[in-house]
């Protein structure tokens, strides 16, 4: 019996989450098969991370190591980072330029599409050794991923059953991606965080628009939310993908900075609020847009700070959160500086995201000995409909709707 079959989801449906989902080791293995190697699209990297033909970079799908390449003609490919021979990693560097991929262990070589092209000493040396004539060295080749892109984001899937990317995303999510990815990208840098928690706890955190103003008190402490910010939540039909957005509280004008200074003089506010000065580069007044695509992709616009995030599931309680922060090739110096300053809001030291590295771990520590207890997820009702409020857990329930469908739970 599979781990999923041995478990029964509570009768209340996605308004309850049983804590065993974060601690069942067999379930973790099954997720690799049914979710990450299943009918899902997994974000691999930005196209801008492979700027030239004949280049590669490594990534992951769940726990599986993956190589993403751009071949001589500029075509993108992705395949498992595992040699057909002894299973060694093919690429041991994070990125590089290459016309072919050569396994370091026994020099078996591959083209950039992941096809085995050469076996060292296949015919032996001086008539001795080598493989039998009927040997099939590519009997167990690295698995190839189907690759699709949207707005310069590269996604891959290992399953033939995955619908086309656009369909998987749903029209509103696709629109939200194209909105942010408005021009050719310039990568500004990256880093990662090792989270002491299950991957699903981080994804729930991302989709949980309810916690934002409660856990992250940076904006309220410094009285930076001057107006009740209008916003809302968009959830894809599958439940798995979401957008949470809010309008910028200010128009980015002097008024805002002066208010900030005033608050600072009164002992509230920031001394240097210029850091937050937002330019409405999209012309729609939206100051925050968090977008997720299940299983593990996040696209974030926090004012002028833009980033993609993905997860590598190293273990049941060990998840790496990989950040790539970017701007656009046509940014002027002032915009680049603005993005770098606003990067203070995000990442492991981010004013508003530092807590997100730890909070999933707090849950993990709390529930490890409560496998059969249920979490009540009823903020905003029990459904997964889009709403014009963010005081709801609808997109968390959306995630579990997606999860249950994938896992057959």
């Amino acid at each position: 019996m599979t781990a999923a079959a041995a478990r029964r989801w509570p009768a209340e449906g996605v308004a309850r989450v049983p804590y065993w989902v974060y601690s069942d080791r067999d379930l973790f293995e099954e997720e690799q098969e049914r979710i990450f190697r299943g009918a899902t699209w997994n974000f691999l990297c930005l196209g801008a991370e492979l700027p030239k033909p004949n280049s590669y970079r490594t990534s992951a799908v769940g726990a599986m190591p993956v190589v993403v390449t751009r071949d001589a003609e500029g075509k993108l490919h992705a395949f498992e980072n595992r040699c057909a021979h002894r299973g060694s990693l093919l690429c041991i560097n994070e990125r590089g330029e290459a016309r072919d991929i050569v396994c370091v262990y026994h020099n078996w070589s591959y083209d950039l599409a992941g096809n085995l092209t050469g076996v060292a000493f296949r015919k032996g040396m001086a008539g001795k050794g080598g493989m039998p004539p009927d040997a099939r060295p590519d009997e167990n080749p690295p698995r190839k991923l189907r690759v699709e892109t949207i707005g310069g984001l590269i996604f891959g899937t290992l399953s033939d059953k995955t619908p086309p990317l656009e369909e998987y995303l749903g029209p509103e999510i696709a629109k939200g991606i194209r909105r942010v990815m408005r021009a050719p990208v310039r990568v500004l840098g990256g880093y990662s965080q090792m989270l002491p928690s299950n991957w699903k706890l981080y994804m729930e955190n991302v989709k949980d628009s309810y916690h934002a103003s409660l856990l992250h008190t940076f904006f309220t402490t410094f009285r930076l939310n001057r107006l009740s910010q209008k916003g809302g939540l968009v959830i894809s039909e599958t439940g798995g993908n979401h957008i949470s957005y809010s309008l910028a509280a200010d128009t980015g004008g002097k008024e805002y900075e002066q208010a900030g200074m005033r608050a600072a003089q009164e002992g509230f506010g920031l001394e240097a609020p210029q850091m937050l000065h937002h330019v409405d580069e999209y012309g729609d007044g939206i100051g925050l847009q968090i977008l997720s695509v299940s299983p593990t992709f996040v696209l974030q616009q926090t004012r002028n700070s833009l980033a993609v995030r993905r997860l590598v599931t190293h273990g049941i309680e060990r998840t790496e959160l990989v950040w790539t922060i970017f701007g656009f090739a046509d940014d002027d110096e002032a915009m680049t500086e603005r993005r770098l300053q606003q990067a203070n809001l995000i990442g492991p030291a981010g004013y508003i995201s530092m807590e997100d590295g730890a909070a999933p771990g707090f849950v993990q520590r709390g529930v490890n000995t409560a496998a059969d207890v249920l979490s009540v997820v009823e903020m905003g009702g029990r459904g997964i409909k889009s709403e014009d409020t963010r005081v709801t857990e609808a997109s968390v329930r959306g995630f579990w709707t997606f999860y249950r469908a994938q896992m057959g739970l």
Partner: protein
Amino acid sequence: MNVETTFKVQELQARYIQALDGDKLEDWPNFFTEACRYLVTTADNLAQGMPLGMIYATSRAMLRDRVRSLREANVYEAQRYRHMIGPPVLEEGEGGVVRARTNFMVVRTMHTGETLLFATGVYDDRIVLEGSEAPCFKEKIVVLDSRQIDTLLAIPL
């Protein structure tokens, strides 16, 4: 480089890490010039010519904002650092500014007792030696060897 300069730099570095390790965060901005540059980045970002930092400040006011946020806004478990630094390698700059490159290691101890080698890297500093507030940092670039941070980076490095 004369012995006196070396001594001044080492003394500044020692007081700097003592302030951080002793939870005297309010003193931290005073180790910098009013207009300054403090950047925590990774060796990988630098090698690729990428400007991104995890923490980035261009004034003492921004450093004070960070301290106030850590004290009043951000939520993180009680923890402390222990910095160990090596001897600085000095280079004479212009206008009484010295460049100092100093290896560091930081061990982080959580309130639970869990102790972890948290960060290693190099401080690439520009230090002002003349003036009423000297010596102090005009620029401090914290270059982390690893691009990976365990859980979060709350206290500055």
